[in-house]
């Protein structure tokens, strides 16, 4: 391990490029592996995922939180742009770097990627194609977290949507309800179109930002410097909502969240893990990285709306989750509910709330990945996710039940686990902001956490603990590979819950400069 770190030390300036390039390289290598050679496919998949996870951990560990700012920076010229700013002088650049927020998200993605690969070991149909698309998806996700250039930000944002249709449509599963079926094709199409509709708004806003700034660059850091003079308050008030809603759609913002439960339920396990765990965070991340940074005045104007919508997310998601009888739909709606905390935290515009939001992004990512992994394990064995049929699984699936319990308790915010720290910070932030409105919404958020406890505990008592009917007597418990994947996630949940300060310091070093830009930040 020490040896690896020494090697990494020497390539600090390329480490982000590797993070971006390795999943792509993995996809290209897999393209040339014969489809029949399953062993080779799996070895390549695990090797690439492992190396990427190590890189992600390295980036997070060696991120210097006292220095803050953007680290590991590297800028490549990509395409010259002619125009009134002088022909050839300016260009679209691939501008790589991470700040405190980005580093945390990179760590999250690396972990979820590795565990997702381990979980999808037994994808039996077209395994090679599955991993190609999976790697393309993750290259897009990493790209969004580490670029400081609007063009590439948008490119990677779209890249992470592109493989979803095929991943869900081909390897997904159809849900049967009493009167109707939610086919995987329907869910895949809905998810893809709704997410791309979100990027329509983002695209328009990016074009407007580019020309209003008038300096011939898409670099966020450079536009940020002129944003005060170039973007009038009116301009910001008009275009910030485009970004807020556009990114909000991916973050599961109510009332645009309906793609998310359908999509997450239909998706294969690893894709649900990545999508709910990481991809939804792209939306929240986009609001921070593009919206808050480039249009601080617009953000101030519109944040009261976002905090209200976030509160609706929390309550609406929790209430919807209570009514579900499909294990994955429960988790899907709980994601909508938990993303509400993230949106509320961002909308507080204060250090506590924002840090809480970012920590919640991280914590929820790990927790949901664990949730979906366990749901996948149960489905692999029982071939049903119906909570009315599943009963007393703890007897035969002791380990799986413990894993689900850990995820569930994290979800309802039990102290000692990551969810508690993150949600506490968000609550404090919300109570500090917006006077009476903040108090009311903060109380609602706490009520939301209580509602979470209701549906999670009910699920635990019904599905896992209780008498085991004869039909579930012959089940097997988790295998060592599944246990390894889930164990990594559980370890992280406890490490954040018991000793959150290393994480919070990194996050705050990223959040503080952003808040410093906003005139009325509290």
């Amino acid at each position, binding site marked *: 391990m020490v040896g690896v770190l020494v090697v990494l030390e020497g390539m600090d300036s390329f480490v982000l490029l590797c993070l971006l390039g390795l999943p792509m390289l993995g996809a290209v290598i897999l393209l040339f592996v014969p489809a029949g050679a399953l062993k080779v496919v799996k070895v390549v998949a695990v090797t690439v995922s492992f190396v990427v996870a190590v890189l992600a951990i390295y980036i997070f560990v060696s991120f210097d939180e006292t220095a803050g700012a953007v680290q590991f920076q590297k800028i490549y010229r990509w395409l010259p742009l*002619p*125009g009134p700013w002088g022909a050839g002088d300016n260009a679209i650049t691939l501008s790589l770097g991470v700040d405190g927020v980005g580093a945390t998200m990179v760590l999250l993605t690396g972990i979820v990627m590795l565990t997702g690969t381990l979980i999808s070991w037994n994808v039996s149909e077209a395994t090679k194609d599955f991993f190609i698309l999976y790697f393309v998806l993750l290259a897009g996700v990493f790209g969004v977290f580490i670029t400081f250039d609007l063009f590439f930000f948008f490119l990677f944002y779209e*890249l992470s949507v592109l493989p979803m*249709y095929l991943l869900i449509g081909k390897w997904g599963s159809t849900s049967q309800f009493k009167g109707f079926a939610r086919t995987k*094709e329907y869910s895949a199409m809905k998810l*893809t179109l709704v997410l791309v509709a979100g990027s*329509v708004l983002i695209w328009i806003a990016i074009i407007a930002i*580019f020309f209003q700034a008038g300096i011939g660059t898409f670099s966020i850091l450079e536009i940020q410097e002129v944003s005060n003079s170039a973007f009038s308050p009116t301009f910001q008030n008009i275009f910030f909502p485009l970004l807020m809603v556009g990114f909000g759609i991916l973050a599961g913002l109510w009332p645009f969240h309906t793609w998310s439960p359908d999509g997450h339920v239909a998706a294969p396990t690893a894709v649900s893990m990545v999508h709910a765990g990481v991809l939804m965070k792209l939306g929240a991340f986009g609001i921070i990285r593009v919206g808050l940074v480039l249009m601080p005045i617009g953000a101030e104007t519109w944040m009261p709306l976002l905090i209200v919508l976030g509160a609706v997310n929390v309550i609406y998601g929790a209430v919807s989750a209570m009514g579900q009888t499909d294990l994955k739909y429960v988790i899907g709606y709980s994601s909508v509910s938990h993303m509400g905390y993230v949106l509320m935290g961002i909308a507080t515009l204060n250090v506590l709330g924002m840090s809480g939001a970012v920590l919640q992004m991280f914590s929820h990512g790990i927790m949901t990945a664990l949730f979906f992994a366990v749901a996948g394990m149960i489905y692999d064995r029982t071939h049903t996710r119906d909570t009315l049929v599943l009963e007393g699984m703890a007897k035969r699936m002791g380990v799986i039940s413990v894993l689900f319990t850990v995820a569930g308790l994290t979800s309802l915010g039990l102290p000692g686990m990551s969810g508690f720290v993150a949600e506490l910070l968000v609550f404090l932030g919300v109570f500090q902001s917006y006077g009476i409105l903040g108090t009311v919404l903060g109380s609602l958020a706490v009520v939301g956490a209580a509602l979470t406890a209701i549906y999670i505990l009910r699920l635990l008592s019904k599905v896992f603990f209780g008498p085991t009917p004869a039909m579930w007597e012959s089940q097997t418990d988790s295998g060592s590979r599944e246990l390894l994947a889930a164990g990594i996630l559980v370890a992280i949940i406890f490490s954040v819950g018991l000793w959150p300060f290393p994480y919070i310091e990194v996050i705050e070093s990223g959040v503080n400069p952003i808040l410093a830009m906003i005139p009325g930040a509290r």
Partner: protein
Amino acid sequence: MNDFALLIPEFLVAGLAFFILALDLFLKENWKQYLAWVGFVGVVAILVISLFVESEGQLYDGLLEFDEFTKFFRIFFLVIAAVAVVISREYVESKLKYPGEYYGILLFTLLGAMLLASSAELLTAYINLELLSFGLYVLVGYERYNAKSNEAAVKYILLGAFSSALILFGISQIYGILGTTRFDEMSVAFSALPSIYPGLAVGFVLIVSGLGFKLAAVPFHMWAPDVYEGAPLPITAWLSVASKAAALALAMRLFAEGFFTVFGEWQPIIIVIAASTMVVGNLLALVQKNMKRLLAYSSIGHMGYLLMGLAALVPIVGDGTTTEKFSNLVSNGLLFHMVSYGFTSMAAFLCVIVVYNKTGRDDISGLAGLSKRQPLVSLVLVSALFSMAGLPVFVGFASKFYLFNAVGGQGLLWLVGLAIVMSLISLYYYLMVARQLYIESSEDGSPISVSFPTKVVLGGLFGVMIVLGVYPAPLMAAIQRATDAIVSGNLLSLV
């Protein structure tokens, strides 16, 4: 003194066409399949030669203008023609008679397209446009015993002749008032006019209608789906790329040089045509069941995006005067998207041709389960469709972003918004095809074999789509040189 060295590539193309026609007379029936290779090698040789020949100057007192713009289009047409010849090979062998005439006429249309890009005068442009169109009339009806092919040919000839007449009438109007048909003299004459006469407006509208027909722009698009469906598939591919790119080349030169000074008068017309073209093309594509018709409507949609670029070529500032603030950005975006559309179209058509050659089906449901039967074709087709939808990392993303961004900078943000929404709608029908390819399975699961040359072309087009999407800088450098030739600062002095 005319320097005929400028025309070497055109002479060579004409020579090659005659050579193939003549060779056809002496070849035995079973040797005629090699005519495609003669054509391919010839076109590639001309391509190499045209990279090195002198390319700056004028011929016939300025009727033909040779500059970097000409060179760019010349090379683009030659590359596309080389691809078109190769993808015709198996189709012609199995479905058509008289390969000699087929390749000969194909090369004559190539000649017309190349000359059109260098035309700097209205009547010369008209003649070259006819050279291009007449060859296409014949080729569209080449499947003699196929009723649809005949129907397509008749529709294409009648409407094509009508649109040619419109263009001619428009030219006569403009000549009658301005006294010149040369682009450079036209812009001078325009700025000397005290006001825009109604006759000029009529002439302009007629020319735009004629060009709109060639570009299949709404409301002159009605012929496109039927002709696309009826024509032999390789000709559909060639028609959808070459003839449209040629008309676009003419339109760019005409608007940037001839109509530059009075562009504000015409811009609203182009905007309306562009908006309706992309809306109609993309909405009608939603309900298509046939792959050729789907691609026809999707290409109409793409013409809408390109026309949007044409409308923004010369921006109008607040007081109605023209400025060339971002016009280089727009013209670059236009050419970039045209190249991107050209290659992705060829790739998509090639995939359809391969499937049609083996299974005889060109409807969308005929593609079901292709990912199992022929993974390579399926991969290339889905990449081409994603590229057309504007998804990364394919070239379609970069070119759409560049073009839309540039047009947005000209104050047409609402039009760009419409284009982006239409691009979202297009994603739906492209995904429906992707669904057939990867998710549905077919009753007939037998593998489809692909010949080695076809595999090479498929791989090549796939590579082009990725490479241009990831690293477009060299292409953009060439495009920059081309647009510098027509969007130059000296025109601004006329405003």
